[in-house]
């Protein structure tokens, strides 16, 4: 095996390999997957000089504790993360959005995500991973992708087959802004709900449930009354779709969502707000605001421009 590797001392709660995800497989039942928060994923790769579509480690809540063995290597962590770097004689509080180098025996201890959910660790080099359908994103439900389709486990290793050339230290001044308001477009079954139900959906606050994962975000709040049918004939789903189940609670489809669903679609989260949506942690409030299609398209252009601008600041 390769001589450069990380030993996973503590796997963390939900640590997986993710990249841009896999396309054109919804029809066989395989979702897009990929990094939940795309902006932070891209920034992490840029900070270590990787290709933008390289796989990274995605973690949630509590991340992994990793010990490195090998030649000097660059890493970067993005998100809103509390982590430490343990060197031979010192412990350093880590800063997000800057490249750091590790030497033989150094440890990275990712303690927690601060009032957010996901964080990313990019490794400057090529990780030895299995690709399935042009992506190594791990999908634990279909058991596909890197790491045999499983979450990280204690004691496993991450082998690096090739290290990047060393770079001058890279740094970005960036703070993740938190939002409570998520903008949506009306769904194809919006009229399945009573006027009162629609008003509740658009004006009340909901709480993000603990039963939230990479597949979906469940919300709790006042019931959204359905006046037509609590089932529709099963049909395709896309990420961001908000279905309302028979009990009147909304559930938002996230990156590992089931590809087919039979609950009415009350709304769809706009593409510009997806990265921020996935970072809203269980117990937090969320409120929906309706926009039209052309505003959603413009908001995405702005968001994407902002992301490109951040990436270019790392050059």
């Amino acid at each position, binding site marked *: 095996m390769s001589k450069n590797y990380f030993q996973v001392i503590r796997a963390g709660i939900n640590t997986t390999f993710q990249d841009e995800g896999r*396309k054109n497989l*919804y029809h066989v*039942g395989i979702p897009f997957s990929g990094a939940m928060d795309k902006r932070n994923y891209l920034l992490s790769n840029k900070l270590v000089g990787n290709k933008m579509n390289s796989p990274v480690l995605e973690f949630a809540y509590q991340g992994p504790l990793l010990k490195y063995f090998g030649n000097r290597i660059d890493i970067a962590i993005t998100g809103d993360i509390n982590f430490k770097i343990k060197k031979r004689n010192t412990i350093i509080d880590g800063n997000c959005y800057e490249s750091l180098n590790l030497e033989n025996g150094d440890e990275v201890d990712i303690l927690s995500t601060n009032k957010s959910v996901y964080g990313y660790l990019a490794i400057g080099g090529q990780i030895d991973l299995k690709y399935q*359908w042009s992506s190594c994103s791990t999908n634990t439900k279909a058991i596909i992708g890197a790491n045999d389709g499983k979450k990280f486990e204690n004691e496993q290793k991450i082998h690096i087959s090739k290290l990047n050339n060393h770079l001058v230290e890279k740094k970005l001044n960036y703070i993740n802004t938190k939002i409570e308001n998520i903008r949506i477009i009306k769904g*194809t079954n919006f009229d399945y709900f009573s006027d009162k139900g629609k008003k509740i959906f658009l004006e009340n606050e909901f709480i993000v449930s603990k039963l939230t994962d990479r597949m979906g975000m469940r919300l709790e709040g006042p019931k959204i009354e359905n006046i037509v049918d609590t089932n529709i004939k*099963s049909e*395709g789903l896309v990420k961001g*779709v908000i279905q309302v189940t028979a009990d009147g609670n909304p559930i938002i489809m996230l990156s590992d969502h089931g*590809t087919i669903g039979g609950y009415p679609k009350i709304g769809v989260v706009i593409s510009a707000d997806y990265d921020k949506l996935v970072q809203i942690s269980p117990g937090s409030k969320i409120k929906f605001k309706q926009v039209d299609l052309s505003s959603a*398209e413009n908001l995405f252009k702005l968001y994407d421009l902002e992301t490109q601008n951040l990436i270019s600041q790392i050059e």
Partner: protein
Amino acid sequence: MIKNILNLGDAALYCDFGKEINRETNTHVIRYFKSIQKENIISINNLSPSYNKLIISFDLKKTNFKDLKRLIENLDITNEDDLENKKIEVPVCCDENFALDIVRLENKLNLKREKIYENFFSKEFFCYMTGFIAGMPFLGDLSKNMRAKRLETPRVRVPKGSVALTEQFANIYTFESPGGWNVIGNSPLRIFDSSKKENPNLINQGDIVLFKEISKNQYENYNE
């Protein structure tokens, strides 16, 4: 043919083929799906054909709803009946350890289990779509006297391989998964194989499926 194209959010087209759920409508959906697939349109991320809908999700950085809608409306859709309709035989063991809901189904349908199985095994099924979980086929149609609703409370874990019924459809759980369909048996056949890159699904849209009863002993010694 497509009756109507709406937007599903800002990055998907929602193509409606009409209210009726039958093989004819679904064949239209499948023809569109295959024709669009052949075009290799770079801005399209995913196609989701279902009974009477086709959802086309796209990369908002490369196109938008209006432009892609126009492109889809002007596509030449094959009218030829070139759908393969592969025939697949699926072995099912109906041992009571597998037939988790047979008693419930006897009561719901007011039919004896012998009759339920006789109906089920004599039927030729058509695959309308695959998905929810990887490779799960949605097969129809069960005759009217075989149609039952989902379980009141869905199971947290339906065992892998379970063969189950609801309304006019039958399906096969390709993975252990939550689910609310009425389970009548279990198949040892591998329906989803992720090592098959070109097509991991044994059963695809438009295929014909026949179920064949096997004994517990045949199930245990099943060899593909």
